[in-house]
């Protein structure tokens, strides 16, 4: 129990901090908008982390599922429909359907080829959305109003939206952890560690991977639908491959081994981008090297940093004793 608690302590603290943020001076519209964006990207990153860490599937096209979710909201908005009970399930279903089709093809390959083919599908989705001239084409589409729920403007309140995002993020995190711990998750991990052995034991990895891929896509679609509501603007840039790269970065920066890492990674990236871009004009000159350094020096990611620090201290302590003696 304590071991499990310690393993998840950092993620729990982060979620608690997010819950108390609106009452600790981060309750203005700007801060709430920023945190909402971080939590939504965190959801997408958690679902990607399920693929990368759980199943060993590095997708460089995950932003496409977010984009499809967002564009579903936009398409319904253009048709004059903004009822959440229609829009949200549709967004999730559309992203899941896309993942089913592309996953069925992509999962035939592995390793670098899987990275590239998911990228190829992501690019196809990107070019498709930029050809929707009725939805703004390359220029994007400004949402007329946020999604309603049974006619109420529930999501218009920034505080309500904050806690909705937080609740969903926590749900994804808990659900993802339960999934990884289940028999299904163990088969996924076994197929990642040693596909031959998994086959020999009698598990065909393909259907398990496909189900995981579709689930991650569905979550990506949900995140996209939320993101469209958070920013009230959607453009093809949401589906660009750099977006997918950024999502991967959140997963890695946070730490691949644990789903909570993705939450930390998403928060760190969004907050860092925001604060650096306020301080400097050419802020990526600092941001880029920071990313490189984090890869070089934090192999377990942010979530592994405390352990690494403790190990370093432990390693340093006996030395000092020797010096004293």
């Amino acid at each position: 129990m304590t071991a499990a608690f310690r393993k998840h302590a950092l993620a729990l603290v982060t979620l608690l901090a997010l819950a108390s943020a609106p009452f600790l001076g981060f309750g203005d519209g700007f801060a709430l908008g920023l945190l909402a964006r971080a939590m939504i990207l965190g959801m997408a990153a958690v679902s990607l982390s399920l693929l990368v860490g759980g199943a060993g599937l590095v997708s460089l096209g995950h932003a496409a599922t977010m984009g499809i979710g967002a564009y579903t909201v936009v398409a319904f908005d253009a048709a004059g429909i903004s009822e959440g009970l229609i829009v949200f399930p549709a967004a999730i279903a559309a992203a899941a359907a896309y993942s089913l089709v592309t996953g069925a093809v992509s999962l035939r390959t592995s390793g670098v080829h899987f990275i590239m083919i998911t990228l190829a599908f992501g690019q196809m989705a990107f070019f498709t959305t930029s050809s929707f001239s009725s939805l703004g084409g390359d220029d994007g589409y400004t949402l007329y109003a946020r999604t309603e729920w049974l006619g109420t403007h529930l999501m218009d309140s920034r505080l309500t939206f904050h806690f909705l995002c937080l609740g969903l993020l926590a749900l994804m995190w808990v659900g993802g952890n339960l999934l990884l711990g289940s028999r299904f998750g163990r088969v996924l991990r076994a197929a990642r560690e040693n596909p031959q052995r998994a086959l020999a034991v009698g598990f065909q990895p393909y259907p398990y991977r496909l189900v995981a891929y579709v689930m991650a896509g569905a979550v990506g679609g949900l995140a996209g639908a939320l993101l469209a509501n958070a920013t009230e603007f959607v453009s093809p840039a949401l589906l660009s491959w750099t977006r997918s790269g950024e999502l991967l970065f959140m997963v890695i920066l946070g730490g691949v081994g644990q789903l909570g890492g993705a939450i930390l990674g998403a928060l760190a990236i969004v907050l860092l981008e925001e604060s650096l871009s306020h301080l400097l004009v050419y802020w990526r000159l600092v941001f880029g090297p920071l990313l490189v350094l984090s890869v070089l020096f934090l192999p377990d990611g942010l979530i592994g940093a405390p352990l690494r620090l403790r190990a370093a201290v432990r390693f340093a302590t006996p030395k000092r004793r020797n010096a004293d003696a």
Partner: protein
Amino acid sequence: MSMLLVQALNGLQFGVLLFLVAAGLSLVFGVMDLINLAHGVQYMLGAYVAATLGVWTGNFWLGALLALPVALLVGLALEWLVFRHLYRRDHLSQVLATFGVILTVDEATRALWGSAPQTVLEPTGLAGGPLGGVEIVAGLIYPTYRLVIIGIGIVVPLLLWFLVERTRAGMLVRAGATHPAMVSALGVDIRRLFTVVFAFGAMLAGFAGALASPIFPVAPGMGDTVLILCFVVIVIGGVGSIRGAFIAALLVGLLDSVGRAMLPDLLRLLLDPSSARQTGAALASMLVYIVMAAILFFRPAGLFPGGRAA
């Protein structure tokens, strides 16, 4: 018909440029098992340096020539600073660290040169004058400079093939790609071999950028689009295979150019003009990726599997 010929030549020329970038990427990937997303920045830097030095010296060709050593030096510096520490890491770390390098170099370019496209001198001294061309078939004039690129793009792969297949250095590179530990045990400094291959690839990409600078807009981020297409080329051609990269590069170049020109017209047979133009443009952008997905579906290791297929 002559329209198709022009597009085919444009496609050939684009394909040849893609090959120059993809060759280095494929070598680095095949020999060192390193996914270098930042290879595209070498292409961009080549274009920027060629443009700037061309204007500064007053001669485009001099600028393009001077871009070669600069690209080489930048490649060496990046290898020493970043990539050297990534050889033993997993692909994931490599993708991310090199992604960070892209952000940094793109931003540095924006800081140094600004966001607007650069002015580039016309390549002078070619038949038909700076803006002219040669008549390739009756009534069809094609720019000489583009023909020069196609020519260079045929000579360089031949040289590269000779270097890799027929020289001692090439033999070491090939051996290093498949059995690095064995080559190292035989007394070859594999680290230095890696560095040389890396710098050479960086120089080729810079050269491609310099050649492309009079044709494509020289602007920040120009390397990223090319990079993605180069990965498509490598994956279609088969990782680590120079021959595969060459054929795939021509295929991608032709598909892209001809598709862009022909698809809207073809779709006009089925759809009304405005929606034909729209879907045609979207389909043309996607065409390369559709073909890639199809090829990988039937041949997961690419057309010419060789080297170290990961």
